[in-house]
């Protein structure tokens, strides 16, 4: 049995039936990390003690003949923006290089309570700001499908590790596309749940009205199992919604025949790579073949999504990142004489170029004289973008689009042009702004064997429908 290519159910069953052990599963994954990750760079920190302790607990349960929980013994990775008690958590930043959180992120705690074995912390763009993982303060991540290319970002390590069989599933975070775009680039499944579906307690904040936690997985079913595990109200996060959690796995079995699926021409315009267009159009034909009804819809404000996003996200980030000032979080510039100097020098030394750029843009957009023209304007356009989806979802149950306008680009290709990098998120930021769920699933490859992603967007709190459609497509394709 190849221990590093198992689904969640296969891994759990193998441990339950004593065909292998959680310890052997963890060790097989660590061996693969040892062999592969030197060139990929997906992990920032390994949490071996914690993993082996949990594996031992699961193995004892299995030995005693107890029923294992849904993720019993399953090796997972956690994006390094989620706090892990006693395990260094850097957010990909030098300013948190030695930070060891005193508590666990709720999503991580729920994964472990469901039996998951946390192998370590995944590399990402600094404070989740980036679309290529090149903004990590430690090292970039390379795409396992082609090492000369980026894995996408910001959850690049989370996507690459699943693609390279170094973890069964991982948790990522998505503020403008940071789960779906890397999933698309690496050829794995990435799910961003509805805003409020999953608690963000313990997630290092980037943009609080846009941040989401969700899974990256090898199959749609694995993503559904993880969502079922981490979803639901958490008293520690007042933005987590009081909405019942369905059994997403059971929902996968329902038919998709007759489902009304929208296609918006705004997602097929200028800038879309020809091979991506062809693959997505072929996928739409396949959905038609599954007896879905394809319905044209219009999302007319889509061209305004990127400017809206980069004002709101940076404004919120400029406030959230004010806390890194040299007082509480491990790093302080040396030789400073005054408090003001300590703040400025610590932040100058601790933050990378992209983080500074976003703090500057956000501070500018919120500053006196510019607030109405930029921040308030963006909040109004956010309403228009959300209304677009409200109207479209009167007619359809799901909307399919490309996840990203291009396949994975080369390292260095866009790193000197911030605007070009921002445009990599053009099809994903809309869902973050409207708070609706979205999933990216593989839909073929380019001639150069680079993965292409199909994005399926759904109504608020209707992850069941997009998972069901994604599962049906995955089974048929």
């Amino acid at each position: 049995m190849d221990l590093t290519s198992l689904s969640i159910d296969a891994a759990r069953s193998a441990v339950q039936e004593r065909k292998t052990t959680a310890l052997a599963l963890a060790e097989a994954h660590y061996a693969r990390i040892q062999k592969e990750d030197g060139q990929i760079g997906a992990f920032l920190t390994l949490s071996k003690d914690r993993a082996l302790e949990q594996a031992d607990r699961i193995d004892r349960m299995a030995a005693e003949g107890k029923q294992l929980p849904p993720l019993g013994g399953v090796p997972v990775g956690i994006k390094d923006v989620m706090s892990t008690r006693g395990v260094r958590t850097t957010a990909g930043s030098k300013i948190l290089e030695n930070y060891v959180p005193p508590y666990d992120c709720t999503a991580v705690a729920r994964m472990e309570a469901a039996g998951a074995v946390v192998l370590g912390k995944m590399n990402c763009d600094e404070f989740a700001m980036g679309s290529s993982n090149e903004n990590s303060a430690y090292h970039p991540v390379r795409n396992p499908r082609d090492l000369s290319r980026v894995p996408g970002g910001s959850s690049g390590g989370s996507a690459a590790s699943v693609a390279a069989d170094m973890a069964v599933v991982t948790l990522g975070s998505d503020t403008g596309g940071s789960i779906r775009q890397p999933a698309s680039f690496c050829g794995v499944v990435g799910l961003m749940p509805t805003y409020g579906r999953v608690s963000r307690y313990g997630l290092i904040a980037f943009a609080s009205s846009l941040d989401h936690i969700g899974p990256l997985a090898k199959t749609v079913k694995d993503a559904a199992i993880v969502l079922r595990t981490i979803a639901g109200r958490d008293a520690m996060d007042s933005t987590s919604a009081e909405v019942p959690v369905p059994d997403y796995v059971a929902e996968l079995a329902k038919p998709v025949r007759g489902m009304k699926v929208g296609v918006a021409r705004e997602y097929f315009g200028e800038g879309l790579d020809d091979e991506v267009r062809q693959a997505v159009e072929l996928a739409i034909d396949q959905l038609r073949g599954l007896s879905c009804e394809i319905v044209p819809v219009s999302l007319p404000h889509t061209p305004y999504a990127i400017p809206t996003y980069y004002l709101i996200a940076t404004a919120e980030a400029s406030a959230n990142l004010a806390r890194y000032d040299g007082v509480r979080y491990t790093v302080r510039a040396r030789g400073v004489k005054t408090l003001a100097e300590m703040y400025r020098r610590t932040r100058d030394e601790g933050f990378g170029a992209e983080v500074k750029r976003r703090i500057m843009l956000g501070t500018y957009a919120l500053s006196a004289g510019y607030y109405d023209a930029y921040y308030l304007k963006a909040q109004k356009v956010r309403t228009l973008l959300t209304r677009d989806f409200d109207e479209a979802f009167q007619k359809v149950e799901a909307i399919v689009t490309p996840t990203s306008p291009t396949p994975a680009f080369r390292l260095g290709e866009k790193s000197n042009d911030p605007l070009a990098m921002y445009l990599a998120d053009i099809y994903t930021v809309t869902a973050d702004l409207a708070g609706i769920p979205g999933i990216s699933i593989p839909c073929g490859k380019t001639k150069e064997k680079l993965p292409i992603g199909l994005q399926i967007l759904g109504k608020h709190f209707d992850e069941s429908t997009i998972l069901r459609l994604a599962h049906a497509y995955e089974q048929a394709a």
Partner: protein
Amino acid sequence: MKVTDKDVAYVAELANLELTSEEHNGMLRDLNSILDYIDRLNELDTTDVPAMAQVSDRYGVDESKQGSERFAYANRKDVVEGLRKSLPHEVALANAPDANEDFFRVPKVIER
């Protein structure tokens, strides 16, 4: 150009960032390029459009209530040691670059 040298210096001060002259010049170029692109928002008339700060006031709330009452589910009692026990001092201070037993320590705030 929308953003001037003076603006960059002013915003850096607001944001508590110390920029080298190289960083300053890069910032001037990048902010202007991004803001030029952002200008396309002015094509839209938003006079009568309400601003949207977040999405969670639309879903999962008590529809029959008004204002903050809609989020009654998120209320909690204002008590010491409520949802989670407070962290002990030594744990809360463990990540501080400089602290004594009870407090974070920082350079002198008031200059004489």
